[in-house]
């Protein structure tokens, strides 16, 4: 029973513009981790945000609207065909683009290339783990699986990265 003095917390959706400003670069980074191309990453992130904007009345009330956007961006970014189309689109509108890709140091390029070589779900779990610093519970909600499964993905993913990048401490026996 609620007395007159009790307060009731009603979760109102954040303004989309605020959400967009705050999350945009992180979603682009996440999409880059999966796609390996800034063009493809920006394209996927922008499309994901446009969809979120269109459905903000619903998406904005989710516990984690950022997870929804990342899922859409991930689905757009991981598709090889779409990636090829996006690259081709980039060629088509190359003349309109003057800004060069931002430089990324060699070690980071190698790391994310190794991440992209992982199976799809390991790739997503590892990207969210390092890039977003999400807990296994948050990643499990994102992937729609059990936490124990996420721990498995992370373990196998990190072991594979260790093999590829040369960290014997994490290699599987």
């Amino acid at each position, binding site marked *: 029973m609620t007395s007159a003095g009790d307060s009731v917390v009603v979760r109102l959706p954040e303004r989309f513009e605020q959400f967009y400003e705050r999350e945009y*670069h*992180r979603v682009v980074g996440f999409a880059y981790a999966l796609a390996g191309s800034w063009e493809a990453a920006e394209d996927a992130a922008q499309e994901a945000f446009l969809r979120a904007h269109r459905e903000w009345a619903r998406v904005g009330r989710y516990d984690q609207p950022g997870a929804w956007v990342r899922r859409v961006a991930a689905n757009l970014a991981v*598709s090889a065909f779409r990636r090829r189309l996006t690259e081709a689109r980039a060629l*088509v509108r190359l003349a309109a683009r003057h800004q060069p890709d931002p430089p990324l140091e060699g070690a980071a390029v190698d790391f994310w290339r190794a991440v992209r070589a992982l199976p799809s779900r390991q790739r997503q779990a590892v990207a969210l783990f390092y890039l977003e610093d999400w807990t296994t519970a948050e990643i499990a909600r994102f992937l729609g699986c059990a936490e124990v499964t996420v721990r498995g993905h992370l373990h196998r993913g990190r072991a594979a990265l260790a093999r590829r990048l040369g960290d014997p401490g*994490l290699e599987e026996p």
Partner: protein
Amino acid sequence: MSVDTRGRRAAQALLQAGERLGPPPDLDRLRRRRRRRVAGRVGLAVAAVAAVAALAGQALPRPERTAPDPAPPIAAPATTLARPGGRPLDPHIRQVIDTGKTARSEVAAGPSGVWVLNQHGDPPDELVRVDPGSGGVVARIGVGHNAARPVVGPDGLVWLTRAGPGSDRPELLMVNPATNQVGLTVPLPGADLGEGTRGLLVAWDTVWVADGRGRLLRVALPFSQAEPVAGATDVGWLANAGGWVWATSGGSLLRIDPVDGRVAARIPDPRVQIAAPASALATGQDSLWLAGAGGSGARLVRLDWGTGQSKRFIRLPALAEMYRPKLAVGQRVVAARVGQQLRLIDPATDKIRATVALGNTTGGVAADGETIWATESPFGRLLRIDPGF
């Protein structure tokens, strides 16, 4: 250096590099770019594919057209066409296009136009491409025996199945709209298409096929082989919404991860069970739409595409209870074909706003933007229908 340390540093470097891309683009500019992209989707896709192909040294033929012509405005006067015998056409029918007599037909619409599948049985079936602007037949493409379920993908490519002359060579076909020819054939070993394909969906650059026995197959890039989706049984109809692939399965809905084809959830719903067996599933208006003829007549269920839970339940009055409704969702209308009637539902109110009388009970229905397309099989007609609201 440990993997964890490398990972943290790589993440930091990536986020810093992302910041150097500049501030997030203005939303209005994004929206304008998206509108342009959608408007010229065919041209862009073909140009993009051509660019990729050119890079690979295998140039594709030039497209015959870049984008469909705009449909006639809603306010255009109704045609004064009449059926044989002088019976006037329903005023919602704006154009009647002769696509050739056939035993049965299906129709699909999308960025590359309207595609009618004339199912002759013998002789081989034929895919008829119609220009949605002029209503002219652009091409007739032989697609072999026992073809079914044409679907136009977001890039304009047309996908369908065929079972072969003895229903013993199940295959998935892709028709390239740039050449009007079958551009790809993928064997579907083990698929039973003898009783017809239940569902076909193009989503997330994967083609999903539900065969006649309810088994679900996914054909992912490079479209060379089909693999069964484990745990998906009694699958009927397929749709793509909210980042998931959805499939009807008895009285339940399956939510399938498009990335790895894993069944993520089976969602039972009493309203879906009442409508079972489902006869159509479609996406649009931020919802999933499921039609079925279970119980005492045809019904339409509107579902939340995030959770799969039902939101509305709409009865579809029919002249007979046996008709299994077919569905198409347009920009402002949901069209449910039940026997000789096409019910036009306003998704803003979930009410039936109009009923269009069709000439016969068999044929398909499809939507493209604000236009609904329906076929009348034995007569070989394609109808352009304007909802008028």
